[in-house]
């Protein structure tokens, strides 16, 4: 079954509102990361939260992690039209021969309406 499952699959809000996306996972993790993907483009790393952290901020982004519930949330405050993109959570489940194994969720498609 899917390691990272995101909720909702799609979210449409008005510019200026806050957007919250959730991610659940099943196995133990080293860290959880959020990436952003504009349509038809590569992924851009947004923020990383380690398994011993509960909350992290970066600009208008706030990430929380609850390892007891195996869940994380990404909050984007004061949304802008330019925030329109797909957002993916990725769980770092360990290293194999030094390479990192990231397991991605299905993503949340966020649309900010002007």
């Amino acid at each position: 079954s899917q390691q990272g499952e995101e909720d909702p699959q799609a979210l449409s809000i008005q510019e200026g509102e806050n957007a919250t996306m959730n991610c659940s996972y099943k196995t133990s993790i080293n860290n959880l990361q959020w990436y952003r993907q504009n349509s038809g483009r590569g992924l851009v790393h947004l923020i990383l939260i380690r398994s011993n952290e509960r909350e992290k901020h970066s600009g208008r982004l706030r990430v929380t992690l609850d390892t007891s519930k195996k869940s994380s949330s990404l909050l984007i405050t004061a949304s802008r039209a330019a925030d329109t993109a797909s957002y993916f959570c990725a769980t770092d489940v360990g290293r194999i021969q030094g390479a990192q194994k990231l397991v991605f969720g299905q993503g949340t498609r966020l649309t900010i309406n002007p």
Partner: protein
Amino acid sequence: SQTIHQWPATLVQPVGSPLSLECTVEGTSNPNLYWYRQAAGRGLQLLFYSVGIGQISSEVPQNLSASRPQDRQFILSSKKLLLSDSGFYLCAWNLLADTQYFGPGTRLTVL
């Protein structure tokens, strides 16, 4: 600064034809390299990773193969494409840090 390139950007190939996608990284040495595939509207699936020249590990058995002929070059290949090979292929790299850096991707359509 480091940059990652992928080409071609888009590719339309007939079923049964061969495939070669290339990824190169600049500005770093001995990176870990990764190939992912993304189906339409879905998340990323790790296909292959490499920790050094000639060292390839496969995550999912399939119609594809990968090679790393040079330190900063990663190639995804197929001898005969299937319809199910269609998708968006992303290359990524990292070092010891936990963040992966992604290329712009190649959109492959198999007809």
